[in-house]
């Protein structure tokens, strides 16, 4: 199938990421945007851009017909869904294909088979892939309570149609389950349009390790090693790395083969991720399969030297996978920090607003995948992730120290971000030693750095200089200036005489 003009049915950093690869391949791109995203970076970067409605995603980015219309209008013959939004919507994929537009993702049947976590469990079990003990279907609150009692607490409540940690919670007893279920269903409904939830036995201090797989339309499969994503907050991944410090070569091969069993069972085509929980004894259990590109694909790109978006496009065109399993390299170590607009001093509450100042790190082995620019707005309507900072090093500690250095160069003004939080994490001993588990951030360890006397002195001097300058300017008659426009002094509005 031809891929000569790609519509990206997404926004933010992933839209920009896809545009970059398309441009490199010489493929024109089409952006779509909601009203509040008119000035967003992906709109400015794309060759074409079309408005698809109001800010709420369900009135714009989630409306399949609008996306289809833009594809027809612009002559795009392929749609890249990014992650989230329509990326795991089988109906959308079907509709696009029915209209002769290539969906850059798996076949709709594979999405359906993996879309319900309960059904996916059954597929995994039948394919011979180990799974976490739990129920195979969704049920009413009452039945879930009964099942939970049988299984024994603690248990995990999860959205059947979910992903990305939304609607997911750990429940330690029946009381918590009762109060938590309505909220989990509410989040599931608002995020995925379906309030079904299911429960699983909770693994104690589990590690989240996932395998990146790729399939083509000719029945070839490879796995591109693992990523560890155990550093999470509220079941949201915060830091990802590849490879995993927990995985031995034997475990890697076993996990890779288990992942391919699941992929083969659903005739998977394109980029997919099979997620596992692993325990301290290196047992691993199928968790779910994400039938799309993952946020954290960058770390796999670092260690393999491959461009996964390019591979997606090649596979969508009907080409064979460019490499066989034995040709895939595992080179060094990569880290990724998700940079969120959130306030570490206010329990990581989202911090939307205008980015008034932005300086991003660069230099050797530093990659910043951003969806924003200085002056752009972080909207409260969408995910607060503004960028993914990733680094590479020959060894894990070198990648960590590179990350620490890069974070130290990151400057975001106007909103709060978790950059400083990540910096503290990079120096956190359990993290550095690789003793990760999904609950490691539950106990708060974040503490603002103390400002020493020298720093206090410097800040105070800057403040006084700023106010002195302002007052000096304010006392001068208007127009008597030295030819230097006051324009750039954004403090002017705080002048008090």
């Amino acid at each position, binding site marked *: 199938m031809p891929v000569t003009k790609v519509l990206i049915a997404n926004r933010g950093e992933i839209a920009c990421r896809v545009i970059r690869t398309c441009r490199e391949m010489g493929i024109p791109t089409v952006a779509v945007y909601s009203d509040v995203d008119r000035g967003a970076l992906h709109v400015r970067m794309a060759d074409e851009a079309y408005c698809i409605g109001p800010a709420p995603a369900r009135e714009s980015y989630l409306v399949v017909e609008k996306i289809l219309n833009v594809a027809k209008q612009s002559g795009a013959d392929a749609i890249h869904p990014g992650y989230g939004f329509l990326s795991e919507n089988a109906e959308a994929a079907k509709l696009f294909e029915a209209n002769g537009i290539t969906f850059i993702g798996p076949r709709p049947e594979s999405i359906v088979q993996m879309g319900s976590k309960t059904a996916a469990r059954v597929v995994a079990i039948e394919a011979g892939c180990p799974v976490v003990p739990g129920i195979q279907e969704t049920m009413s609150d009452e039945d879930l309570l009964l099942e939970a009692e049988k299984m024994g607490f603690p248990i995990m409540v999860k959205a059947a149609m979910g992903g990305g940690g*939304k609607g997911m919670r750990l429940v330690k007893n029946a009381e918590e389950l009762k109060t938590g279920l309505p909220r989990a269903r509410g989040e599931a409904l608002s995020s995925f349009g379906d309030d079904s939830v299911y429960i699983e036995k909770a693994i104690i201090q589990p590690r989240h390790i996932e395998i990146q797989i790729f399939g083509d339309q000719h029945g070839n499969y490879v796995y591109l090693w693992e990523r560890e994503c155990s550093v999470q907050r509220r079941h949201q991944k915060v830091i990802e790395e590849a490879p995993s410090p927990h995985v031995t070569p034997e475990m890697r091969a076993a996990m890779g083969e288990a992942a391919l069993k699941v992929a083969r069972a659903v005739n998977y085509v394109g980029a997919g991720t099979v997620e596992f929980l692993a325990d301290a004894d290196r047992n691993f259990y199928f968790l779910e399969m994400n039938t799309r590109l993952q946020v954290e694909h960058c770390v796999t790109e670092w260690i393999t030297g491959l461009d996964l978006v390019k591979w997606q496009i090649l596979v969508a065109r009907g080409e064979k996978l460019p490499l066989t399993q034995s040709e895939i390299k595992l080179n060094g170590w990569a880290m990724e920090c998700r940079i969120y607009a959130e306030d570490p001093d206010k329990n990581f*509450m989202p911090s939307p607003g205008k980015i008034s*100042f932005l300086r991003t790190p660069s230099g050797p082995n530093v990659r910043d995948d951003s969806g924003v620019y200085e002056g752009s707005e972080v909207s*409260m309507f969408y995910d607060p992730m503004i960028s993914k900072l990733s680094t590479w090093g020959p060894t894990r500690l070198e990648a960590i120290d590179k990350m620490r250095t890069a974070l130290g160069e990151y*400057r975001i003004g106007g909103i709060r971000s978790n950059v400083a939080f990540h910096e503290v994490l990079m120096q956190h001993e359990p993290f550095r030693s690789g003793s990760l588990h999904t609950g490691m951030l539950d106990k708060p360890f974040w503490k603002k750095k103390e400002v020493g006397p*020298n720093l206090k002195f*410097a800040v*105070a001097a*800057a403040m006084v200089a*700023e106010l002195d300058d302002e007052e000096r300017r304010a006392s001068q008659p208007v127009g008597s200036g030295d030819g230097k426009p006051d324009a750039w002094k954004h403090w002017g509005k705080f002048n008090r005489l």
Partner: protein
Amino acid sequence: MKRTLLIGKETHDVELLRQDGVTTFLWDGAAQAVDIVEVEPGCWSVILGGKSVDVRLDAAKNPDPDVQGFRATLYDEPYEFALQDPRKALLAAAGGAAGSGGTLTAPMPGKVVKLLVKDGDLVTEGQPLLIMEAMKMQNELRASSAGKVSKITVQEGATVETGGTLMILVAPEAN
């Protein structure tokens, strides 16, 4: 001009003297040479005793209108510093400070998904009062101390801005 610097509970007398191309900073009477340049709008490069420090200043709202507040960002972490004209400080000290009531305000812009209490309810410290949704995450807002709900100023479904009042609580004694 002499000013009073407030950092949390610390106060210091500070003043910057510029003379013959040399800048001297006075800190509680002690003088130190500083080299201070605004390298970008709001961004100052300060060199003192050889140390090079980059300071970014954002104006911060201070509840007291006579205090000039800045949020200084050092290596992407914000710290609140405030400066006061000492003459005004004297005047302010003569007046009385208004007690702050138990007002629950929105910590971020978002939508009120669910009210968990109603007017007149007695609440305990830490009790969930309402659920807000922003960026697809639901967050419970809890009572910071025990009290009575005296007035709820929002409805379910309402969209609120940061700092917007959600409800007012009064101390149980005030009942």
